[in-house]
């Protein structure tokens, strides 16, 4: 089976091509967020302008023709409405023209699925960390097969927190990695630490770090901010692993590109003899291949979307999506 996946939930427009589980192409273009952040309408315009080119490059690299394709997957949500719409329209047009299946995919599910796909993990606890989302997930078969949210952020995603801090402190983009770089030479200073069971919150930490940025060395603030926020994620994850008696852990999403986070999670897993896996950075950032892989799996399992399902949903919760 050959499936195209289209991702457009935020600043990335990505197209992936997959054939029987093998990723043949994974192309993307990213909107330059700059100092102002994302303005949905402008990002959507960017996606419209670049969709054709990204699609063509991806097809070219995959060595496939449009006529070979069996299905088109796209991100249904969660994400920014105008941006999602561009991906959905592109996918719908293609599917209608080619007369193939259209597959709406949950963005968060796709992040975990691609990670399972490349690591070979079977039933892991997943720490999904990105700009907009920070959740601890695991498959639950009742009342339908879905990712149950074991723990999540009470306010903002950890990536959003790091970015907002860096912007307020006048650092350069890409913010997360700038914070990581500065953190290397820092020393610890106390910051608020908020974990409740398997949930966590980041806004208190953000406020305090922004205040401290004016008083302390930037290296120290970045170091402490990163150490504190990642330790919070690790504690909640460790609790989820033990509570569910899990033997596997994976991490995914944009923030999962962080070396330090993976090092810390690796240490949690060592202590409990748990298998730990993650995908490469290009598959952790938003991309089309993860949508393609998930859509192919859904089609293989016999999923066929009804016309009413093929819309977009800005707040498409991960636990509302049926997993195949």
């Amino acid at each position, binding site marked *: 089976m050959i499936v195209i996946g289209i991702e457009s939930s935020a600043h990335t427009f990505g197209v992936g091509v997959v054939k029987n589980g093998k990723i043949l192409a994974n192309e993307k273009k990213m909107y330059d967020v700059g100092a102002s952040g994302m303005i949905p309408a402008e990002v959507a315009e960017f996606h419209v302008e670049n969709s054709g080119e990204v699609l063509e490059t991806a097809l070219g690299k995959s060595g496939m023709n449009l006529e070979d394709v069996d299905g088109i997957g796209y991100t249904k949500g969660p994400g920014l409405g105008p941006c999602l719409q561009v991906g959905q329209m592109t996918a719908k047009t293609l599917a209608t023209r080619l007369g193939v299946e259209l597959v709406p995919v949950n963005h968060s599910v796709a992040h975990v699925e691609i990670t399972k796909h490349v690591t070979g993990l079977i039933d892991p606890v997943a720490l999904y960390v990105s700009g907009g989302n920070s959740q601890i997930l695991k498959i639950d078969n*009742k*009342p*339908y097969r*879905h990712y*149950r*949210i074991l723990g*999540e952020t009470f306010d903002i995603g950890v990536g959003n927190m790091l970015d907002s801090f860096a912007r307020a402190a006048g650092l350069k983009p890409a913010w997360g990695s700038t914070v990581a770089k500065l953190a290397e030479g820092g020393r*610890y200073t*106390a910051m608020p*630490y908020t974990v*409740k*069971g398997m949930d966590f919150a980041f806004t208190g930490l953000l406020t305090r770090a922004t205040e401290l940025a004016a008083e302390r060395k930037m290296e120290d603030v970045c170091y402490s901010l990163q*150490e*504190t926020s990642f*330790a919070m994620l*690790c*504690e909640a994850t*460790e*609790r989820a*692993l*033990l*509570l569910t008696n899990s033997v596997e852990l994976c991490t995914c999403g944009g923030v999962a590109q962080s070396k330090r986070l993976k090092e*810390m*999670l690796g*240490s*949690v897993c*060592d*202590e409990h003899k748990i298998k730990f896996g993650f995908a490469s950075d290009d598959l952790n950032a938003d991309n089309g291949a993860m949508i393609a892989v998930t859509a192919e799996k859904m089609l293989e399992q016999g999923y066929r979307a009804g016309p009413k399902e093929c819309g977009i949903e800005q707040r498409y*919760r991960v*636990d*509302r999506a049926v997993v195949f």
Partner: protein
Amino acid sequence: MRRFSGGAEAEIFETEIFGKGAVVKVRCEKKYRIRELDVSIRRTRTRREAKLLHKARMGGVLVPRVIALGKFSIYMEKLSGTPLKDTKIPEKGYGEIGRLLARMHNAGIVHGDFTPANIMVCGDDFYVIDFGLAEDSRSSEERAIDLLLMKRSVGRGHYKFFESAYAREADGSKETLARLSEVELRGRYQIRTLT
């Protein structure tokens, strides 16, 4: 010392103190986080837990007696009983559990993990254990979470007795129960009610 049980943040060992059976809860070092953070978290939580155990006892809630306090460890009396989750008691018996939670909330404490695994049945008495996630709080939101955890852990009949006893005895129970209905409407709590 024999390892008795343990969770993510602490281990519990059986030991003896002054010739009597005791348990010690040790908050262990976590290698994933930097030392400064690790020490500060373990120390504050150990102190807070001991303080709340004492406060609960003063409020008339049966809890294990604290015998001694270390930097990262709490020595407590060893209870001879079984966890409520492994004990069959009649539905009516859950009224007493409701009164127990009411007393704890009235004392200004929320437990944070109020499930049948953390209630010990010792003869006719019920003891509340594990104050690791407990907090000094009178917020209706956190109180509602205590009720919700119990609601999702036991049968409907059991819960009915539990809730009506709680409603009679807890201060501000009207507000807490209203909050509970609100919390249950949130997306993450809805999925399992579809069954």
